[in-house]
């Protein structure tokens, strides 16, 4: 691997200081399942690797009813799917934490890393968009908050300026009668990259949708928030027809490319199927919440 120095700051302030001091020459290490592959392969250069796993705010899962769920940006997947609060309240997050990579990858990889890596195929991002998650970002001028759907700007690019650090992800407390689900299509069951994926959430009220959110993986330069698909469900009865309409909107919104994993036509078709099926599961979950 290319030469670099390593630092393991213990606080957010220290990490921000290191990141601003070294600017573009620094990169952040959480689980390392993307960044170490990129450094070794020469796809990315760094003179400083800043390991953020020992910073308490990046390493904690905290839940309370008033402020919702906070997941530190470096918390590995296995701690998310073994967390009792997450299991009970955010099954949509369990879906993604337990399907990223395989067991070994889940021992290291984090939702924050998946987001910062900004791959179009990122599995964790559509469900975070569906769950209205926001990102707490620390920098030399203090903190700011960015909605997850606004975080990635292009493949491999995000809104973080030099010297900024993604600290944690915040999920509002689930509303009554709400449910969420992420579905992905890959040729094998694990250790592959999404051909397409759909993350959805719904809120129900007496057989009607109060609101819904839909986001797609692998069909645009970044995870695609399809606001109009969720909006089309608001106020509509829960039915095969209303869900089908939302799935068709998702299909229309998808802007995939042809590559070795699938053609444009195939991926658009998948968006319709995955959105429809994910919405049905989310509705089931919302009903069980009663």
């Amino acid at each position, binding site marked *: 691997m290319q030469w670099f120095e*390593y630092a*393991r700051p213990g606080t957010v302030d220290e990490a921000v200081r290191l990141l601003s001091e070294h600017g573009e020459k620094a990169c952040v290490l959480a689980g*390392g399942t993307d960044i*170490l592959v990129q450094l070794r392969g020469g796809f990315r250069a760094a003179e400083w690797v800043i*390991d953020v796993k020992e910073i308490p705010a990046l390493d904690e899962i905290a839940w309370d009813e008033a402020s919702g769920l906070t997941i530190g940006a470096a918390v590995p997947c296995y701690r998310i799917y073994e967390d009792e609060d997450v299991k009970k309240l955010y099954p949509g997050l369990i879906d993604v934490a337990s399907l990223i990579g*395989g067991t070994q*990858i889940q021992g290291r990889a984090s939702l924050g890393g998946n987001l910062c890596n900004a791959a179009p195929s990122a599995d964790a991002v559509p469900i975070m968009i569906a769950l209205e998650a926001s990102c707490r970002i620390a920098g030399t001028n203090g903190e700011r908050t960015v909605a997850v759907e606004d975080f990635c700007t292009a493949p491999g690019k995000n809104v973080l300026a030099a010297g900024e650090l993604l600290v944690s992800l915040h999920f509002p407390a689930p509303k009554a009668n709400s449910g969420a689900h992420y579905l992905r299509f890959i040729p094998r*069951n694990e*250790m592959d990259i999404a051909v397409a994926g759909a993350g959805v959430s719904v809120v129900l009220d007496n057989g009607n949708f109060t609101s819904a959110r839909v986001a797609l993986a692998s069909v645009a330069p970044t995870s695609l928030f399809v606001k109009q698909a969720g909006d089309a469900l608001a106020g509509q009865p829960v039915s095969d027809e209303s869900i089908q309409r939302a799935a068709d909107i998702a299909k229309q919104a998808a802007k995939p490319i042809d590559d070795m994993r699938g053609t444009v036509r195939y991926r658009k078709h998948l968006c319709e199927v995955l959105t429809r099926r994910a919405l049905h599961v989310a509705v089931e979950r919302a009903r069980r919440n009663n």
Partner: protein
Amino acid sequence: MPRRVHVQTTINGEEIDFLCEARQSLLEVLRDVLGLTGTKEGCNDGNCGACTVIFDGRIVTACLVLAVEAEGKQITTVEGIAVGRELHSIQQCFLEGAALQCGICTPGFIVAAKALLDQDNNPSEDKIRLWLANNLCRCTGYDKIVRSVQAAAERMQEVR
């Protein structure tokens, strides 16, 4: 001359310290610095699982861990699975079940299976296959590996 880092860690129950460069992976240090060559290098990018080790209780691929991250951690490699000269049930069952041909993937499978059976003494076939999905074998077709893990689970229950 790149700066070298002093790392103190525990490998297979033994406290160890070593010097490494920040850029060296745990896999490189295990094999090239510490002489623990049971852990194999396959793809070197996290896909094949040949370098699987137990890192603070969880399996990880050692190629995707920097050696400097081992500071203060508990690590188990395939060399730490047998008890003295006595093979672990998983190793014995792999031999009896012919769960290997070329053997390069075997240490990774043994370590991954050990971590699974430590947390679930009677996993379903589905669970075994899913757990081992990050370990690739190009010889066996997996069935003999899965059956050997099942046999090891049974044998470990008898011993209890």
